[in-house]
Structures are given as structure tokens and as C-alpha cells.
């Protein structure tokens, strides 16, 4: 091992200056984001759904991969903070002209961007941007990862934690099942990082072996919370006595081929039905990052049932993103 790298998300004072991943964040910072989000939550109920915190600041939504939902929630969050929001459809424009990712960033920094919200198809792309900003001495510009490849989707992970805390109050003692395509899921990685940072008792990764990465059991090795990660191939066994069930979206292109034979067989083995949910605790909550594939990973009876908290997740997501945007913008002061 050569020189230990400094965590690029934290500035010299240990403040959060970029949100790139939940992995490697101290527990206090994660809790601080959730606490701050609670204060932002009521703003959506006001007559004027806006606070002047980021007035005059520019938030650039840089989506190298299309995602209307995530982009919209970031846009609402930034606008409720009074920031100017600029949406760049980079999936179509500059990169197709051969401009590199970092050229794009340099150009936007020259336009006085204050914060970049970045979605990219390649794991680690937001790290590259953050490093580039540091290398070129532009520490006042912040990066928020809105999903990179299979790596991380930290604001989704945080809003999932917000949801769990809202319904379960305390993380210790919780058994949380994460079901589905963990191999390709940045949501799953961020959830696992966050759950182990916050110290749940047990994380259960449930799925067929083609959709589970190796070494899942070691994924929380960096944290000292004592959270256990267990892998289940049998969904019924994995759901038994769980407090929280997080269902993952199965991408269309993975439904047939070498990973899975068919959507129908996937639903039979790993779809969440009322019968399977009955194996979890009676007060278990069901979460899903959306958009849902009804009848593939989740039965409509569960998705619309009283244990589902999928819509509250969406409204909590705005408050969490407001908290993240304002905390990073306020760092280094």
C-alpha cells in the first residue's frame, strides 16, 4: 500500500465539502445530514416553499445519464433553497462532440458554477471531478453524486435512512433486507454503507448468485459498528423477522439473458408478494427507490399496501437533498 489517500469528501477541517459516497463518512456527518433534513421537511408545507439560503448560487445538474426523476428532485430541492438551477443535458450535447468530462467541468466552472450535481454511467466519475477541482485549486466548487455507475447513490441512501429513522426511530437492533440486483445497484451499495455506518444489527442481501457481488459479507469491514452482512439466496429465509425490506429495481436489460432466464421466474423467486412479506415482522416497512416494476420485483398488493412507504420516501428525498446541498455549500466557511 502506498500513501493513504485522504477522504476526498471531507475538507481539511473534516467538514463535508462533496457528497460522493456514504462509505467512508463518519457517523456524525450522516446523522447531521438526517437531522438537518428534518428541519427542511416542513418547508414544503409552507405558503412560500422556499428559503433564501442559497440565493445567488448556481447549482448545475449534470446528468451524463438520463434520469428525469432524480434530476427533478434535485431541481426542486435546489429551487426551495433559492439557488439558480441549470439543467444540462450532457448525455446529448458536449460529450458527443468529443469534449472530455473534465473539459465540460472546466467550462462550467468558468461560468461560475457553485455546485455540480452529477449523474454518470461510470463508477467513480464524481470522484474524478472532485479530484480535478482540488488539483486545479477550485475548492469553493462542490460536487454531489447523483448516482455513478454501480458505485453509489448517496442521496438515495440517505433518504432511505431518513425513512427508516422516521418509522423505526432507532437503527440498533434492526434487521434490514435488501432484495434483488445488488451486483449492479448503486442504491444497494449506498444503503449497505449507510446501514452499517448507522449500526443496524443485520443487513441481509437477498438475490440469485448472478446478481450478488462477491465479498458482500466484508462490505462493512471498514466500519466498527458491528453490523453483520448476511447473504441469502432463498428469499423466504432472508425475509424472516425483518424490520425493513428494501426492494431494488431490476433493469429491463437484465431480465433475460445470462443473468436471469426471465422476468416471470425472477418474480416467482424474488418478487415481493403479500405471502412472502408476511414472513417479515408484522410492522415491517417496504421501500423501493422507484420506478417500480410491478409484477417483476414487487406485487401491486404490496406496493399499494399499508406497509409500503414508497411515496413518503419521495417527499423525504427533497428534504434530504436540500440538507446535502446546503451542508456542502456551507463547508469551508
Amino acid at each position, binding site marked *: *500500500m502506498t500513501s493513504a489517500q485522504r477522504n476526498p469528501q471531507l475538507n481539511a477541517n473534516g467538514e463535508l465539502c462533496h457528497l460522493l459516497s456514504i462509505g467512508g463518512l463518519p457517523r456524525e456527518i450522516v446523522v447531521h445530514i438526517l437531522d438537518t433534513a428534518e428541519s427542511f421537511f416542513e418547508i414544503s408545507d409552507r405558503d412560500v416553499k422556499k428559503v433564501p439560503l442559497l440565493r445567488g448560487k448556481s447549482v448545475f445538474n449534470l446528468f451524463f445519464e438520463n434520469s428525469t426523476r432524480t434530476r427533478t428532485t434535485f431541481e426542486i430541492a435546489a429551487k426551495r433553497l433559492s439557488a439558480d438551477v441549470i439543467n444540462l443535458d450532457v448525455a446529448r450535447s458536449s460529450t458527443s462532440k468529443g469534449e472530455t468530462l473534465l473539459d465540460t467541468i472546466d467550462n462550467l466552472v468558468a461560468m461560475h458554477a457553485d455546485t455540480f450535481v452529477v449523474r454518470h454511467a*461510470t463508477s467513480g466519475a464524481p470522484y474524478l471531478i472532485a479530484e480535478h477541482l482540488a488539483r486545479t485549486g477550485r475548492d469553493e466548487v462542490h460536487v454531489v453524486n447523483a448516482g455513478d455507475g454501480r458505485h453509489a447513490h448517496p442521496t438515495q441512501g440517505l433518504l432511505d435512512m431518513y425513512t427508516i429513522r422516521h418509522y423505526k426511530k432507532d437503527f440498533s437492533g434492526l434487521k434490514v433486507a435488501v432484495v434483488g440486483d445488488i451486483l449492479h445497484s448503486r442504491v444497494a451499495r449506498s444503503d449497505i454503507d449507510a446501514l452499517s455506518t448507522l449500526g443496524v444489527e443485520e443487513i441481509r442481501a437477498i438475490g440469485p448468485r448472478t446478481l450478488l457481488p462477491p465479498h458482500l459479507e466484508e462490505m462493512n469491514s471498514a466500519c466498527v459498528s458491528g453490523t453483520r452482512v448476511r447473504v441469502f439466496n432463498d428469499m423466504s429465509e432472508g425475509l424472516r423477522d425483518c424490520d425493513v425490506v428494501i426492494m431494488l429495481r431490476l433493469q429491463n436489460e437484465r431480465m433475460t439473458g445470462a443473468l436471469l432466464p426471465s422476468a416471470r421466474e425472477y418474480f416467482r423467486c424474488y418478487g415481493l408478494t403479500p405471502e412472502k412479506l408476511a414472513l417479515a415482522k408484522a410492522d415491517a416497512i417496504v421501500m423501493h427507490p422507484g420506478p417500480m416494476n410491478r409484477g417483476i420485483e414487487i406485487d401491486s398488493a404490496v406496493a399499494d399496501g399499508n406497509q409500503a412507504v414508497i411515496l413518503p420516501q419521495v417527499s423525504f428525498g427533497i428534504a434530504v437533498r436540500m440538507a446535502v446541498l446546503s451542508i456542502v455549500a456551507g463547508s469551508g466557511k
Partner: protein
Amino acid sequence: MKIAIKNARVVDPRSRLDALRNLFLADGRIAAVTEVSVVPEGFADARQINASNLLVCPGLIDLCARLPDLENELAAAAAGGITTLACPPDTTPPLDEARLVERLRHRSEQSGLARMFPLGALTQGLVGEKLTEMVKLANAGCIAFSQASAPLPDTLVLWRALQYAATFGFSVWLRPKDARLAFEGAAHDGAVAARLGLPGIPVSAETVAIATVLQLARDTGARLHLTRISSAEGIALIRRAREEGQAITCDVGIHHLHLDESEIGYFDTNARFDPPLRSAADRAALSAAAAEGVLAICSDHTPVSDDGKHLPFAEALPGAVGLELLLPLVLRWAKQENIPLTTALARVTCDAAAILGLDAGHLSPGAAADLCIFDPQASWQAGAQTLRTQGKNTPFSGQTLRGRVQMTFINGQLVFSR
């Protein structure tokens, strides 16, 4: 021209010599290695070099160095004490035609620096479909044939390539990599890739390929050298084949003896290698195998521009520069693993020469006077300022390394001095 190098610590791995000696060169060859009190006849008025506190060993032999800017990289090799090197065929364009090989050899001979031995492409354009004119390429100077790190997914083509090479007794150097299992992979399929969401390259991408190639080599009788072994299981397969009497050689890149997957940290593209850095246990197994002599060591020198490294991890180009780091990293490896210097340096001198089929890498009288003279105590910082190579991509950037080349001789000519 006569030269007397006096009071040096002389390490000659082939003869297991590690002692204070005088070394005498005449007419580009080693004339004598003597006790420090002795000066042979005719050397009284030779050019004197006082080498007290310095170490003299055979010039290093590097089994793999990519030389995009040939003259500059050969100068970097000289600065790294390297006097002989093999150049893989994945140049632009690939070395699949005799005229390309001749031009490359001509330019390297003009430079008067390290002896450069090209490897010819095994298939045209390294595409893995049609064989190259191996006989013509060998006549032009190719020392062996290889796909470099390009895949050869068609086993039938591989089988025929080995048969054809065996017809003429040519060596085939192969990187064991199953193209489909390694497809789109960017890192070892282990804990780090799982955490960072990087597409993984399983160890089986290496072992499946080793098993296939070993079987085909047995069937065809081809002379086989396996390059850049990266895993403990790969080593185990090779050991077993050797125990069964199969004559195969293999090598490892110096970085794989020092680093493992944890080096990636937060997507550090300087830790992107092909084959990938694997687990700590794999690194330990490679180190043990290299210490035993199962593996020779090479720099796998691969200059990559900033543009090739300032990309998201999976899109970044793999590789690191190594010409000037090979010696200090071998010294560090020897120190960390408590390996005698004669053993450690053998892996980059006489062992490598044997793989290339050359009478080189030793200090016997009559051998070509290819020497590396270095200060084993000198420490220096690796970085853009201290490296001559065009590429600055190294995971050791900013680190203090011990052991620095002072002089390099090729055929008795001083080609580098600090």
C-alpha cells in the same frame, strides 16, 4: 578502451557472488573480476572508477517495456540501469510486419542505448484471427511471438498458432486472460471492486486461460512463456505443470509484488493495471513464487498520458511506468521479504536472460560489459521531476525510494551517468 572499477560491492546473481571486488573491462567485455588488492596486467593506466560504497551488478534485463517515444524511453531505461529489454508487439501499428520490426531495431541501434528485442505479433494486427509471417519476423529480429495483452478468444487459432510456432522452434509469450470472463472488467473481482461498484475480473479469467494454454502447449510442443501472472491460483497451476515436467517460464510485473487491490482507494487510476492488482493473499503468493524463482520480474513499463489517466476508473488506461523504478522496487521487495540480493537481482538479470535465450545478465569474464552501478543507500523521490520517461503515471509518485543508478555501461560504453 580499458576501464578499472575499483572497490565495488559486486553482485553477480548467476555465480552467487556478493563481495567487494575490482572489475576490469576491456574492448567492451568483462576482462576480470578480482580481489580488491589485485590489478591485472595491462590495467595500470586504464580509466579508473572508484566505486566504493557503490554496488555493481549486471545491467538489468526487462522482459516487458513499452516504448512509445523510443529514444526517450531508451534513455529512461539507461537511467534505470536497464541494458536489455523486450518490447511487446502492441505498438501502433502492431509489430506484425518485418519492415516495422526492422525500423524499430534500426532506430534503437542508432541510439546506442539498451539492446532492444522486439516480440512479434502472433496474429495479424493482434486481432486473433490470422497468423503472422513468423519466419520473416524472426529473421527481422523478433525474439518470440506474443499477443501482448490483446485477447485471443478463438482456441482453434491459438492451437494453430502454437503448432506453427513450434514448427520453427519459436517461443510464444502469452498473457493468460480469458477474454469473455475479463470482459469489461476494471478491477480484481474482490472486496474493493464490490465496494466501489467496479466491474470485476475474476481470478478464473486467468486460471481458465492458463489451463487452456498449458494443455495446448503440451499438445503442440510449443515453447511457452506466460506473462504477468497475477493470482495465487494461477501460480498453483503453473507449479503443478512444472512439477509434472512441463518446461514453462513465467513472469510478474514488479507492481504486483508490492501492491494489492486496496491501492485503488478512492478510484485512483494509477492503480489500474492489466491484469488487475489482486488480493493481499495473491500478492503474497506472487512474492513467494518470485522469491523461489518460479517467476521472473519485469517492469511492464507502460507510459500513459494524463489524458489516459484522468478518466473515470473503468475508462482509464491501465499500466504504470517502471523502467526507472524497477531497480529500487526490486531492492525494496528484497528488503521487505528478506531475500538475498543475489536472489532478488537474478530475477531481473540472469533469469530474464534465460527466458530470452540470451547469454547475458552475468559478470563472467568474456561477457559483454553491460553493467548497472548504483548507490544502494541513495534515496530519492519518485515523481515527474525525477523520472525521465515520458509517462508520469506511477502509484509510487511522491514516495521515497532507496537505490539510485549512478552509471550504466553497455558493451563497456558509459551510456548513463548521474
